[in-house]
């Protein structure tokens, strides 16, 4: 049954999309009063992330607490505050990568949710595919076996490097986990390395457990969930912002194990698991 190239449904879909496009363009080209989305953003001074970047939220909070009005924080922009790489120390968090400071400190709760989304979707994958078995892939060739044996240890090393330097350079736990999972995928299709899903599940749930435990310990030490209770050190050093370092390492392990479970499940179902 071949469908013709032009049909009414596609035409109406195109029309709908066109109208939607015009509608979406309207806020970009409007003229009139009121706040608009920036045509050409020049600085971030009237956003919350301005204070996040300068690591000066605590100070602003102190100023605002005096007149007890947290909605007027935009008017305070002249507080002299400097963050210098390699010199500033004992700030709120010692990350040189400002994105990491937002991901794991200022908005750590979102990251927790993100971890859970990944966890629950891989769990769901194993639930959904638990009764299926798949056709096997063909035998790997000599070239594949050699190449995989050469490349895989380096990939795992790079993964570990990336999650250990998550607070200094781009990367962090999630990309590192993806790299580690790619290494396991290579070893799975390259040299039939048959890891057991239950072991990886154990690593995964333990890492998740410890992440939440570390976050909950903040309740005891700082009086607030996800509060930072370890020393932050000097910005730019490897041993700065210890809590973020530990949590990102756990996240890296967790994501690596999780994605490996997902790959194994999609590769041959949970049947081969001898549990």
């Amino acid at each position, binding site marked *: 049954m071949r469908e013709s190239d032009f049909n009414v449904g596609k035409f109406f879909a195109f029309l709908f999309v066109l109208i939607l496009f015009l509608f979406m363009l309207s806020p970009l080209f409007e003229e009139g009063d009121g706040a*608009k989305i920036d045509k050409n953003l020049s600085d971030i001074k009237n956003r919350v992330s301005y204070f996040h970047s300068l690591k000066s939220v605590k100070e602003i909070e102190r100023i605002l607490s005096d007149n007890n009005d947290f909605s007027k924080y935009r008017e305070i922009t002249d507080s002299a505050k400097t963050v210098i790489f390699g010199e500033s120390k004992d700030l709120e968090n010692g990350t040189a990568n400002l994105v990491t400071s937002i991901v794991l400190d200022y908005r750590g709760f979102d990251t927790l949710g993100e971890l859970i989304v990944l966890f629950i979707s891989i769990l769901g994958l194993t639930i959904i595919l638990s009764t299926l078995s798949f056709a096997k892939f063909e035998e790997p060739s000599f070239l594949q076996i050699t190449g995989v044996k050469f490349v895989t240890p380096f990939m795992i090393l790079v993964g570990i490097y990336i999650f250990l330097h998550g607070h200094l350079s781009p990367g962090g736990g999630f990309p590192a986990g993806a790299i580690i999972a790619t290494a396991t995928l290579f070893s799975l299709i390259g040299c039939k390395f048959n890891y057991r899903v239950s072991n990886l599940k154990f690593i995964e749930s333990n890492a998740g457990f410890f992440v*939440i435990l570390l976050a909950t310990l*903040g309740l005891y030490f700082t009086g607030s969930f996800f509060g930072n209770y370890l020393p932050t050190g000097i910005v730019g050093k490897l041993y700065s912002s210890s809590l973020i370092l530990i949590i990102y390492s756990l996240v890296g392990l967790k994501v690596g194990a999780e994605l490996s479970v997902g790959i194994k499940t999609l590769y041959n179902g949970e049947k081969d698991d001898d549990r």
Partner: protein
Amino acid sequence: MNYNLPVLLIAIPILFSFLSLILGSFNKILSKIILISVIIFNIISGICIYNSVLKNGNILTVIGNYLPPFGINLISTYTSISFLILLYIVFLVASLIFVSKNDDRADKISSVLLLYLASSTGILLTGDIFNLFVFIEIFSISNIILISIKDKKLSIKGSLKYLIITSIGASLYLFGIGFLYGILGTLNLSEISLNFDNISYFSKVFIFLFFLGSIMAELEVFPFNFWISDSYAGSKNYVNILLSGLSSIVALYIFIRLFLTVFGYPTFISFSYSLPFNVKTLFLTIFGLSVIVNELAALSSKNVKRILGFSSASSLSLILLSLSTGLKNGVMAAMLIAISVIISKPLLFLSSHQIMKGKGEKNLNSFIDGFRRNPLFSILFIIGVFTLVGFPLTPSFWGKFLLFISATEKISYTTLILVIVVFSITIELFYYFRLMHKLFIKDENIKVEKTKNNFVYIFSGILLASIIIFFSVKPYFTQNIVEKTTEDIFDKSGYIKSCLKSGEIDDR
């Protein structure tokens, strides 16, 4: 005051969901015990928070030691905490039923259920718009998994439809968030609601419509309601209870927070919107159409679960219809109908499952002679139907009565609301009475065997029925709760003040 109990309502289920997977690999019973004990913990701490909210007003919980506009925060208001307790009761019933069944994937499913609990709590408590998005995603993914565990064609199809709809909805929501952040530079719900009026004309329309589209995708509302039929008919009993009870609470709460607190401006008697088009007409059109379409779909179905699913969607739309009138009476009516729907829908699913037990096909005819087979659950079914339809003295009756009164206040919509409500009641009565009539048809040729009821089913059925009866025979208690909730919904400046310490909004 930094009050940390609310965050434990989210953290403890997450913690134990990991633990349930670890311990469940040794023994499946352990994960079931963990599930039940976590829910009991949540109920007890929920009641503690309820008491302190009654005493002190809204409670702010700071996460990460950074105060609201800078970090993420949770706000426990009267509305959220009373919805939460209702949600936990429904969840307790569903998980008791889950526990009573044997399943070799019990450790994984109980872990999913715990995350479901955590995410629905998070949706109800969070004060940050992006955090709300994250929790909605967890919620919808766990819904997808729970629908698909029955492993039939229908359930897989239903969950895939749900996935496609919710991911399009989520993308619309994220576009709205991007626009809000690009314009206002903040993600805090209170600050957005404080500054929403300052946004320019077209941006406001854009943000509003994108959020509306995304929420409609989650809300079982008319153009997006086609996933209901498969996912209700193809899923297990406890999943039906969760879908009909919990999803409506969560959807209702998201609607209240976004479209009444953030985008709306409360005055003494009604909500108003500072948008260039008439928002109420839009809402009334969408939800009115949704009520009618869902009722007609329920009328034309043969499968009992499908009938109940469409009926729950239509009653959710009716609640939203009365909420979106924006009048004080309308909001009160919505709360009254919500109480009765949230409790009676699980009861209906439970009892219809027990009545049809042992019958191969789950269609209308499997109800025949149900009263002689299973008298207890037939009575519970009838109680549920009377509560849902609005038999006098039930909360739903008072709710529909108030809706009629509120319709008289607003001249332009009077006839429309009246027509929709009367239409929905008539059709509901028709198809429920058809089912109830089938219960008492005697088939003399076949010897009737009494169904053996599991203790858990009897316990949860009687629990739900007694809650309904309690709400019906204590009208002043119900009225007290509903009035407080309505007051809380209308108290926008109180919500902002509890988060940002100040922030007056101009009453218009």
